[in-house]
């Protein structure tokens, strides 16, 4: 049973560029959430997708956008990259019940130079 798969694992981008990160949820999960984790901090909620719609959004600017596909996989897009966007981006999937919590992927380490 595959867990959450994220790609790529590492990425280096230049300020002002755009980036797309990808996530395949755990088998049986229909909800995908994205989190940003700066070094030494707890993950911060970006947004959640369910039934191909953004269901809830955290305090992130419109430069952060996403998409969910019919097969429940998801993309996170960040435009006009800033140095401060350098972080570990985590995808988490879940199903209707939270008894088993969220399943996190290994993340994409984004470095903006």
């Amino acid at each position, binding site marked *: 049973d595959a867990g959450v798969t994220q790609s790529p694992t590492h990425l280096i981008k230049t300020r002002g560029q755009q980036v797309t990160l990808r996530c395949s949820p755990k088998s049986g999960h229909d909800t995908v959430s994205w989190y940003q984790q700066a070094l030494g901090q*707890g993950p911060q909620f970006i947004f959640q997708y369910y039934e191909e719609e953004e269901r809830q959004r955290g305090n992130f600017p419109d430069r952060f956008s996403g998409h969910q596909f019919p097969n429940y996989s998801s993309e996170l897009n960040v435009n006009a990259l800033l140095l401060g966007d350098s972080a570990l981006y*985590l995808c988490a999937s879940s199903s209707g019940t939270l008894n088993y919590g969220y399943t996190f992927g*290994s993340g994409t380490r984004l470095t903006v130079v």
Partner: protein
Amino acid sequence: GQQVMQIPQYQHVQEGEDFTTYCNSSTTLSNIQWYKQRPGGHPVFLIQLVKSGEVKKQKRLTFQFGEAKKNSSLHITATQTTDVGTYFCCGGSNYKLTFGKGTLLTVNP
């Protein structure tokens, strides 16, 4: 918005000693979840607490949810080197997790 605070930020123990981390929320929580993140790893779900005053045990780990549902604690008995990592408490919902900053536990063998 909801804020979740954890203390201590860091804890270093000798192997075999006990360890406790405390979590406080600015608002009443419908539930609380605990995650462990190993160095260089990703958060891994440990447990969810839902009921006021609830206590759950997983081997050497004991989790408590406060009567007012605004605080929680994680206690590890007789720590082992495999316990190393950052422990996060989170206010949970179907829509988002609000993470605390975590407690980094290091264990000296």
